[in-house]
């Protein structure tokens, strides 16, 4: 891979691992409120494994890097979020044309593939108070921004704002999938931990992309 792509891949991995590590305790606290309290620790372990494999991943073409990163999350995260985030990345890597360069349109296509895999793996959809409630609106915003031909900075701001609003919107939802669904109405009023980790990752990825464009 060209040097700038390698640098970008490494920067993305570092930024995702950093935000998960920095927020692990908060993710765990959110999960303790409506789940089994393992989301922070599980995600931290998985993204630490990605960080360890960063050099190896950065040397691969994007399709293979995403596949390998997804497999790593599947094997290392442990909870249901391992297969879910893992399937997301693996499916993104299978998107046609991933190795020919990624613009906003292709990124939207990748996220669409990833979301379809998360829905299938989790037997879930929007409205169940899960990571899909953040990923799906973020994808819609990405598609819109790509169609509008938005510049990187505008696109990043729009995606981050969408992710913030979407994560917040999981609060009044009643969980119907995942461990929180056992709580029924008691799941109402709490942020979904999976939605929150998806929000954090959206921010991290957007910030790296804007930073790289400016570099």
């Amino acid at each position, binding site marked *: 891979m060209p040097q700038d792509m390698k640098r970008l891949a490494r920067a993305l991995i570092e930024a995702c691992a950093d935000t998960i590590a920095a927020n692990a305790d908060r993710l765990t606290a959110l999960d303790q409120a409506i789940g*089994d309290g393992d989301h922070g620790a599980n995600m931290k372990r998985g993204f630490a494994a990605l960080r360890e494999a960063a050099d190896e991943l950065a040397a691969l073409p994007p399709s293979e890097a995403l596949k390998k990163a997804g497999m790593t999350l*599947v094997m*290392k995260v*442990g909870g*249901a979020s*391992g*297969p*879910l985030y893992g399937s997301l990345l693996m499916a993104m890597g299978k998107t046609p044309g991933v190795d020919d360069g990624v613009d906003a349109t292709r990124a939207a296509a990748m996220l669409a593939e990833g979301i379809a895999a998360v829905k299938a793996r*989790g037997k879930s959809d929007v409205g169940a108070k899960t990571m899909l409630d953040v990923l799906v609106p973020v994808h819609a915003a990405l598609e819109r921004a790509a169609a509008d031909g938005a510049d990187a900075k505008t696109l990043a701001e729009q995606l981050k704002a969408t992710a913030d609003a979407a994560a917040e919107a999981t609060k009044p939802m009643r969980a119907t*999938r995942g461990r929180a669904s056992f709580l029924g109405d008691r799941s109402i009023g709490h942020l979904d931990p999976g939605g929150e980790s998806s929000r954090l990752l959206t921010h991290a990825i957007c910030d790296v992309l804007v930073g790289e464009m400016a570099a």
Partner: protein
Amino acid sequence: MSTHKVGLVIVSHSAEVARGTAEMARQMGGDVTIVDAGGDAEGGLGSDVAKIMAAIEKAWSPAGVAILCDLGGAETNSEMAIEMRGGDPGAGIVVLKAPLVEGAVVAAAVAATGASLEEVRAAAEEMAS
């Protein structure tokens, strides 16, 4: 009736629950291979794809393997393990939609008779209906 018996894998978030359930199922299971895969990779509560994949290999039988699991993540990780094993998706390996303990005991009892994977599945899943 085949001479090969369906193998069982018991997946729980707790290693102790998986071990205990496998122990109860063995009481009924005669020479059925029953392998427990409980807890996460570090021995804590959770489920672990690698552990489940290894358990499937140990329980492997030409008659097939039936997986019993407790909660959402155990099921998601079991389905992931089946897929990561490769080959035809789910060929000869099924996740039973049955309560863990009751399902495991019934599945073991039925598997011990030399019943097919479908018969084992039907008997265990009847528990949940």
